[in-house]
């Protein structure tokens, strides 16, 4: 039963993934990514990783995808991609690569027996790792968060907070001109 569910969820995830890369409209693709993520959370749960499943659902499906949709709507791009036209050139190598990876993965099957049953990771054990061995990375990821904030501040904040610095004399004035000049 659980096995069947695993395969069902896995196929769902793959179905979603396929649609992410194959659907013409970005919004549709995003929705399909959500489908994939949900399915994957189910897989994690099935495999015995409830914490990961939950976080995946919360952070990924909850936060990240919402952000995506938000941006999609914000930018409001109406035009669809000219997808089929472009697929022709790129499908070949992609397919080849895909087949390669698939073959590689299937190769794992050759030597391995079936996985043990009844494995279940508890939140406690995850916590032990996270705050024990992984304490340092955990702290470092705090820095990453800080970096993310700074990044968004720099890149997305509109408007000037301050007047241009006095040092910028003639260079400032010629800024647009210079932009145009920087060409390969």
């Amino acid at each position: 039963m659980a096995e069947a569910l695993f395969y069902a969820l896995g196929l769902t995830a793959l179905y979603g993934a396929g649609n992410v890369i194959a659907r013409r409209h970005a919004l549709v693709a995003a929705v399909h990514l959500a489908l994939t993520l949900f399915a994957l959370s189910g897989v994690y749960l099935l495999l015995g990783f409830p914490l990961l499943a939950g976080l995946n659902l919360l952070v990924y499906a909850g936060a990240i995808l919402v952000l995506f949709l938000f941006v999609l709507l914000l930018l409001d791009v109406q035009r669809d991609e000219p997808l089929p036209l472009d697929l022709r050139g790129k499908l070949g190598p992609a397919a080849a690569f895909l087949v390669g990876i698939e073959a590689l993965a299937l190769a794992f099957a050759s030597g391995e027996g079936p996985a043990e049953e009844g494995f279940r990771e508890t939140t406690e054990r995850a916590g032990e790792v996270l705050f024990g061995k992984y304490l340092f990375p955990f702290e470092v990821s705090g820095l990453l968060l800080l970096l993310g904030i700074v990044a968004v501040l720099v890149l997305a904040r509109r408007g000037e907070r301050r007047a241009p610095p006095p040092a910028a004399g003639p260079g400032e004035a010629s800024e647009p001109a210079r932009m145009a000049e920087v060409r390969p």
Partner: protein
Amino acid sequence: MSVPAAHVYALGAALFAFGLAGFIMRRNLLVVLLSLELMFNGALVTLVGAAREHRDPEPSTFGLFVVFLAAVEVSVGLALVIALFRLRQTLDPDAAAELRG
């Protein structure tokens, strides 16, 4: 439950491959970012498979970091996409091809 580890790995590999293909093919930067998430998820599934195979909580904890990283990546990526969109009014990745040669 007795799903072979290989099948979990296969799922991860497939997701990674789908993501890879999407990353390369899609002409919409946001979808490219989505594809990137697929690749990350491929890695994540593989981590889970490894954790299960080795009965070790470390990879799955690692997986938490992957989710976290994905979040940071997406925020930075979206910020960059927005910045570009403001300048170019398009999400076509090839619009950012002024630098070349």
